[in-house]
């Protein structure tokens, strides 16, 4: 194991009998031509347990997005294995990635259709999912008529429409203002606990990671390695301004700064 475990950490993931939601085993990923390859991810070993909320944290160049692409099956690792026992995971991007030629409801229905849901069940199911993200009245709205936060909620509803137990999130709230982000943190934790999802959430925002995650995994940069991880024992519901969230954030930020500083030295 390459993890540097701290007193906050847990190794429970490897002791559990139930299959993990994701298992990354010694995953390497390099880009570039043979002979001149650039390692992006180096020996990543990581499990996400069913129902677990894991935040991947790192500075730029740590290969966070590459890692999510690998788990989503959009790219293949150079070596190592990735197991996703539950099948194709749902993926949410920093940009909402909703299709502008469809209404909010139709975007959700397209995901249902591609999953094979029969025609007559799609509309009520899409409405239920929009209701779940508190956008009951937005079925017929065009994407450009929605605010940034509403678009991300529709994108979440569309991701949930895939009915995958694993949700991958690639800095989905990075482009939102603080108050909207706070509201969406709340919605996400609510839906996560109701739907018993496993979430792998990539962010560069330490506070966000601590606010959301049960476990925070810090990646080093160039190449991305698991530098350290923390189990976050602060009970939900948390608020981003909670003192406990702030304290752990300070500790993790210090560690992240150390990681970044190392790159300036050579």
């Amino acid at each position, binding site marked *: 194991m390459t993890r540097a475990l701290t007193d906050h950490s847990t190794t429970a993931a490897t002791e559990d009998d139930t299959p993990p939601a994701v298992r990354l085993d010694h995953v390497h990923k390099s880009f570039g031509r043979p002979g001149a390859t650039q390692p992006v991810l180096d020996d990543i070993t990581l499990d996400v347990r069913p129902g677990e909320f894991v935040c991947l944290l790192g500075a730029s160049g740590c290969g966070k997005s590459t890692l999510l692409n690998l788990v989503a099956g959009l790219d293949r690792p150079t070596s190592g294995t990735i197991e996703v026992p539950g099948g194709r995971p749902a993926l949410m*991007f920093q940009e909402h990635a909703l299709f502008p030629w469809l209404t909010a409801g139709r975007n959700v229905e397209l995901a249902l259709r591609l999953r094979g849901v029969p025609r007559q069940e799609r509309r009520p199911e899409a409405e239920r999912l929009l209701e779940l993200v508190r956008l009951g009245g937005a079925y017929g709205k065009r994407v450009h008529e929605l605010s940034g936060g*509403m678009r991300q909620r529709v994108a979440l509803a569309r991701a949930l429409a895939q009915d995958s137990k694993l949700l991958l999130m690639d800095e989905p709230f990075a482009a939102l203002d603080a108050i909207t982000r706070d509201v969406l943190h709340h919605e996400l934790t609510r839906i996560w606990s109701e739907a018993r999802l496993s979430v792998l959430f990539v962010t560069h925002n330490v506070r966000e990671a601590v606010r959301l995650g049960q476990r925070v995994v810090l990646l080093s940069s160039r190449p991305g390695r698991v530098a350290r991880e923390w189990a976050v024992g602060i009970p939900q519901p948390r608020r981003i301004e909670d003192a406990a969230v702030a304290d752990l954030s300070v500790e993790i930020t210090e560690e992240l700064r150390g990681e970044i500083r190392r790159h300036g030295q050579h």
Partner: protein
Amino acid sequence: MASTDTSTQTPAAGPGQGGDLAGLEAGLDALDSVRVERTPFTQVLLQKVLPPVLAVVLVLVVWKVLVLAHVTPDYKLPDPSAVWDSLRDLWLRGTLFDIIWTSVSRGLLGFLAALAIGTPLGLLVARVRFVRAALGPLLSGLQSLPSVAWVPAAVIWLGITDSAMYAVILLGAVPSIANGLVSGIDQVPPLYLRAGRTLGATGARGAWHVLLPAALPGYIAGLKQGWAFSWRSLMAAELIASSPDLGLGLGQYLENARTDSDMPSVLLGIILILFVGIAIDLIVFSPLERRVLRNRGLAPAGR
């Protein structure tokens, strides 16, 4: 503080928090939503209809002034009323719509054929690398070749027939339509394709549900240009390859007027050709384009 205990997860909607946040959320949604409003009718009239009408009136006034000033003899620049008389004459003889319809039906039929050929061709060029390398430059080159250059070849191959007309239309319009689709597909944001793939839209389903709808604005721009090319090519073909057997279209009407040195009818012919080109664009393509763009929030409402 951080601890190793992760078992005390409770549902997130804690006391006093859910209600607060729901209210906050409703407020944010209301504040941030983009309101789509329609422009009032009188404003459309003032901003959209009035300026072009004024421009036409201005052209007529300048024309009339030039005629009154006798800058050039009558047979070169007739009075606007003489053109009006030519139009009335066609109307009274009952041939006006026959002439227009002969050309318009040819143009539309040729355009539809160009659509049926250009669309699969564009898809092939956009998606198959070898086809793109082979045909891409040729298609772009053909677009800049004036299709009137094809008329002599078409006449030798096919004689002065309807087939020659359609051949010239196709050679003019197919490259535009195909190129429009290619650039439409090239401009599809990669994010949509990634999002489509994570949703399971791959292969033919990906093309149908994601790629083609995403490429639609570029495709429609290509169709618009394709129509303009069809119409221009047809007029060129009708002018050059006119024969009594083919029925009287606008091009032939114009050519006959030239032979008779009937300047009012020549001007009328030009005006009618222009009118048909603009009318088809206004009736068919502009509403289509506007609808597609407005649905995507790419054009201001009320335009």
